[in-house]
């Protein structure tokens, strides 16, 4: 591996890490607030990608307007799933888990029927330029997700720490009963968490749509690494998940570049098993009683 390829791989790994971080932070936030999470989260990502495809590639909207549309769509889907599935099934971890598994089927078929099966939808890149440093050229489109991820996750952390609503979210995550005694409306908090999760999935799906081939199977491909990131980082811990997404983003990208994608997945699952065998609650998770 020469230095040029090394630099390129590092840049790619950064982009992949940023994408996983945005997806997995949404998952873990929803998990923290509801003690349940969403297997169909990868399909939210896919919905964001299709939104950008429809608005930007088909209807010639400006790229960033299309991404904003993807954020909106993601948030709306998140709200709908919270209202339709998670709220009635609150407290039933197995039920919520299996219901979102069923939701994966629904989303996949819906996208397939609307946008066509087996059609790869290619979204043209709005930024053709490449960033050059130390002789390596990295496409601008690929790394643009990194500042976005930093801004989104940083914003989320600030929101959770210094804003009343964000602190209410954390209170519900710590102890729903005590939080509701303080006058926090739990239904509104779970809705908020799912809307944020959906919006984060939508924005990352929207930005990454130019890099991935957009197919109905995209959601299923993206969900396994995202779930591994959440489990490794610790369920409910935003910081742990960010750390784990950087770790796994680098592992997956480097092994994919050096060997192949199947091996990369195997290695990351093995890392997950190792982490769980030593720390069952994940790297920075709390012990669930």
């Amino acid at each position, binding site marked *: 591996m020469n230095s040029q390829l090394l630099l390129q791989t590092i840049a790619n790994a950064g982009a992949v890490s940023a994408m996983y971080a945005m997806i997995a932070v949404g998952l873990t936030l929803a998990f923290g607030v509801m003690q349940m999470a969403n297997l169909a989260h990868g399909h939210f990502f896919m919905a964001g990608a299709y939104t950008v495809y429809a608005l930007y590639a088909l209807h010639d909207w400006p790229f960033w307007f299309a991404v904003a549309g993807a954020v909106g769509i993601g948030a709306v889907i998140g709200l709908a799933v919270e209202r339709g599935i998670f709220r009635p099934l609150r407290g039933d971890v197995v039920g919520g888990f299996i219901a979102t598994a069923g939701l994966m089927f629904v989303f996949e078929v819906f996208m397939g029927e609307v946008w066509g099966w087996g059609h790869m939808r290619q979204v043209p890149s709005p930024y053709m330029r490449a960033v050059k440093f130390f002789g390596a050229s990295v496409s601008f489109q690929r790394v643009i997700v990194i500042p976005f991820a930093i801004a989104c996750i940083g914003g989320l952390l600030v929101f959770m720490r210094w804003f009343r609503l964000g602190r209410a979210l954390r209170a519900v995550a710590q102890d729903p009963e005590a939080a509701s005694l303080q006058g926090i409306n739990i239904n509104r908090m779970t809705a908020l968490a799912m809307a944020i999760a959906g919006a984060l999935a939508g924005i990352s799906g929207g930005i990454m749509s130019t890099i991935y081939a957009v197919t109905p199977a995209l959601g299923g491909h993206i969900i396994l690494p995202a*779930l591994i990131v959440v489990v490794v980082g610790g369920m409910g811990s935003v910081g742990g998940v960010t750390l784990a997404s950087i770790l796994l983003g680098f592992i997956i990208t480097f092994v994919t570049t050096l060997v192949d994608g199947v091996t990369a997945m195997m290695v990351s699952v093995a890392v997950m098993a190792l982490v*769980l065998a030593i720390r069952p609650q994940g790297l920075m998770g709390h012990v669930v009683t």
Partner: protein
Amino acid sequence: MIYFIWMILAQSYRLIVTIHDWQLYHVVLYGVGAYTSGMLAKNLGVPVFAAIPLGGAVASLAGVAITSVLLRTKGWGFYIATYGLAELIRLSWMKFRNPFGGSTGIIDIPYPPVVAGIDFSARIPYYFFSLGVMLIIMYMLYRLERSRIGDSFKAVSMDPLLAASTGISIPRQRLLACAIGGFFAGIAGGLLVHRLGAVDPKLFNITTMLYLLIWIVVGGTNSFWGPVLGVSVMYSLFELSRPLIQIRPMFFGIAMILVLLFMPGGLEGMVAKAAVRLRRLRGVQTAEAE
């Protein structure tokens, strides 16, 4: 034929569910059984009827191995981790072309031999052979549920602390459930592979697992008859909806969500409720007649 295999899978999965270990590797264990049995028969010349239970044994070991790594992980993390480790096994079939044949799988797996004048490689004798295996397995699981072991599984799922304080070792019971369930799943795999004569990793992906979950959830898990009902009704619908193959998963996904939301006991729970109501209705009528 496939119906019998589904029935064995659903019933053995329900055994694991009675201890509340919903896991997502059951279908992969079925695949482990299929691969082991097929490879033993093809490469080592083990007789088919010996290879099938050996496949079950290896699947059982694989299940125990996965669960023992994750014994301390709880709740949602456990489900995801079982999915991940199942993918690890399944991807290794795709990755290692040499023993497992890569993504195209293995072909030319031997069919069962002629025993006592009956040619088991033909369709009809094999049908009755697998029917017999299914009935034996179902009888064993039925007895097991009513035994001390079945009671201790239920105790663990209802109240782990109380169960542990009465001297039930929770990790041991969980591993035991995995071992038994995995064994029968492996046998189901053996039954499949010696009929198809081929095996590939696509047969055992997460979609198959989700269908198994749908059969079980729609059927209901509270009693032995739930999976029977679930597999009978849902698998028949599955086969009947073949013309709608593209949008079929959507129907089943919606069906499962609706069942979870509105009838938590599944079809079996509904039948039980209806039976109670009918009995009460009849009781009222006879009371009025008197």
